[in-house]
């Protein structure tokens, strides 16, 4: 396995409110290896976007990292002062957000925004920066890049804007790109273009990708490994093919069954009863226990930690501890 690029250990993110502290992310651990695409899936409120925000230090107050460590190539980045974080953001970690409109400043041309990012992080002249910017736009598939670089964001369509955002994220040749729902705001036919682009361009440059999305289809196509989050906790992590075709955690199994596909023949979808608990009422023990068909005594009292499974997988479920003890 390649070197560990980003390592997240026991990450805890809290939101203090007047009714007590809400733990939005509760002891989540995972690694991202150099050059790999790690998919992070979960339903709304599972904490997937917060995980990304915590890594790049963009948690919105009053949210704060209350425990754990985040290391980029062994160097801790979760306790850096704002200045240090700013240097890492953009330079070593690039970002692509859901809505391309909010990631681009409507008052500046694409050229201004791209060259500024390049000049901030790289020792090049203005003219070189512009050349690089044009090359980047060309690479992300903007037709007539040399001419369109002086346009403003509103001159571009949604898909084209997301291409510009990707160019912006890659401008300083980061080692890691965090893409938070990069295709959710786009039409199906454009989605595939953007997914392909992210995948290609990152592997070309050796950048790892943390792809945060609620869309299992996108993960299936793009990711090497996938982490499934539930109620701010890691349910399961492993190679994407294994997790999708042979899910181990009862939640992941239910989730996969509930997605209608173009090939299934059954008339009814598998459904998980109930809904993900609110942060104010996460049950004791395993957070999934009220919805789980396999829950037994221990699930109601004790929270399962991720258990190592064959094939480089981990699953946080007592069912697998039981098996182990039998062996």
């Amino acid at each position, binding site marked *: 396995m390649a070197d560990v690029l980003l390592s997240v250990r026991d990450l805890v993110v809290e939101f203090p409110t007047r009714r007590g502290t809400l733990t939005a992310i509760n002891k989540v651990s995972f690694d991202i290896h150099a050059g790999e695409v790690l998919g992070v899936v979960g*339903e709304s409120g599972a904490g997937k976007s917060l995980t990304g925000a915590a890594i790049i230090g963009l948690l919105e107050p009053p949210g704060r990292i209350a425990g754990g460590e985040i290391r980029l190539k062994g160097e801790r980045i979760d306790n850096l002062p704002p200045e240090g974080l700013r240097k890492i953001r953009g330079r070593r970690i690039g970002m692509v957000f859901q809505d391309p409109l909010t990631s681009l400043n409507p008052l500046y041309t694409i050229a201004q925004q791209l060259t500024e990012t390049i000049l901030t992080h790289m020792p090049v002249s203005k003219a070189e920066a512009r050349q690089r910017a044009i090359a980047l736009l060309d690479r992300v598939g903007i037709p007539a890049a040399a001419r369109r670089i002086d346009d403003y964001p509103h001159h571009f369509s949604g898909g084209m804007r997301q291409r510009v955002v990707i160019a912006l994220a890659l401008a300083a040749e980061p080692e890691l790109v965090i893409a938070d729902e990069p295709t959710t705001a786009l*039409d199906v036919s454009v989605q595939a273009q953007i997914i392909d682009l992210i995948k290609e361009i990152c592997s070309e440059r050796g950048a790892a990708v943390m792809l945060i999305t*609620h869309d299992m289809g996108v993960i*299936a196509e793009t990711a090497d490994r996938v982490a499934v989050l539930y109620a701010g906790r890691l349910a399961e992590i492993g190679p994407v093919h294994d997790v999708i075709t042979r899910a181990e955690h009862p939640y992941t199994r239910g989730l996969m069954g509930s997605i*209608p596909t*173009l090939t299934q023949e059954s008339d009814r*979808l598998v*459904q*998980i009863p109930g*809904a993900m608990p609110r942060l104010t009422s996460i049950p004791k023990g395993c957070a999934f226990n009220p919805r789980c068909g396999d829950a037994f005594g221990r699930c109601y009292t004790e929270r399962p930690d991720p258990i190592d499974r064959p094939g480089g997988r981990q699953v946080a479920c007592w069912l697998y501890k039981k098996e182990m003890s039998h062996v």
Partner: protein
Amino acid sequence: MSDALIRVENLWRRFDVSKPWLNRVIEREDRQFLTAVADVNFEIRKGETFALVGESGSGKSTIAKMVVGLIPASSGRILFDGTPMTGTVGADMRAIRRRFQMIFQDPFASLNPRWHVGDIIAEPIHTFGLASGADAANQVGKLLDTVGLSAKDAEKYPHEFSGGQRQRIAIARALSSRPEFIVCDEPTSALDVSVQAQILNLMRDLQDELGLTYLFISHDLSVVRHMANRIGVLYLGRLVEVSEGKSLFRQPQHPYTRMLLDAVPDLAMSGRRRKPVEGEIPNPINPPSGCAFHPRCPVAMDRCKVEAPKDRETPIGRAACFALEMQPA
């Protein structure tokens, strides 16, 4: 066909997107119109689910709103069980209105936040004078039970429920006037997948129990495949293909349908590469000449640029494409 509950004939909708009069005069611009729906024809048979799929700007929501009378058509007719929806007024229209309902996309916006859930569900009951007092409350309780909630939930406010539960409340409201036909405008696109499965299953169960007819609007082909008996594919306000449900996925007729299918992510991990499509949806204010799809079409011919194709019978329905005329049907 005689068992058509809804018949849509030559439906057009243009929106005036002109700048204000003074700006037009100063900037010497003409009025601008956006054709959201162009000459759309289809029928929905009793008891079936007819789905309209398309990307943003395809006009699918506009059609849904015209069918329930939220916006008027620019031209064309919509017949409900043989009665034209425009021109029918008073008690006749009220009688028709009771027979159709709508479920909306965003369960956070479709329930009045200041109303009790019970009042929300009872509104159609009271509006159509179907019941009152304890009788109405009784019906509300039964409806809540039908959609998988508890009768006690009638006293709560919408904000006390999750997105999926709210959509259940919206479904209960839609059922409360005992309609035959429900327009579902992207009913699950704001929901998480595990909740989406619950709602889709519920909608199918209700259809079986109550013999409902659905017009199902969605951008998600997998969901449409799961729900629909027949499917209409919209592109830039034009209905390019209408086909039998599952057959459409086995043998798409129109190149745009094929393109949409190829763009769906492959969850089964069968190794099928999804083929990204060239280009993006054109601006509907200035749609391409001829066939609106020709700039993105892999099989476009010269003829497609100048002439709009007419509907043509296919083995599984109909489609509007010149390429289909080349090959024997």
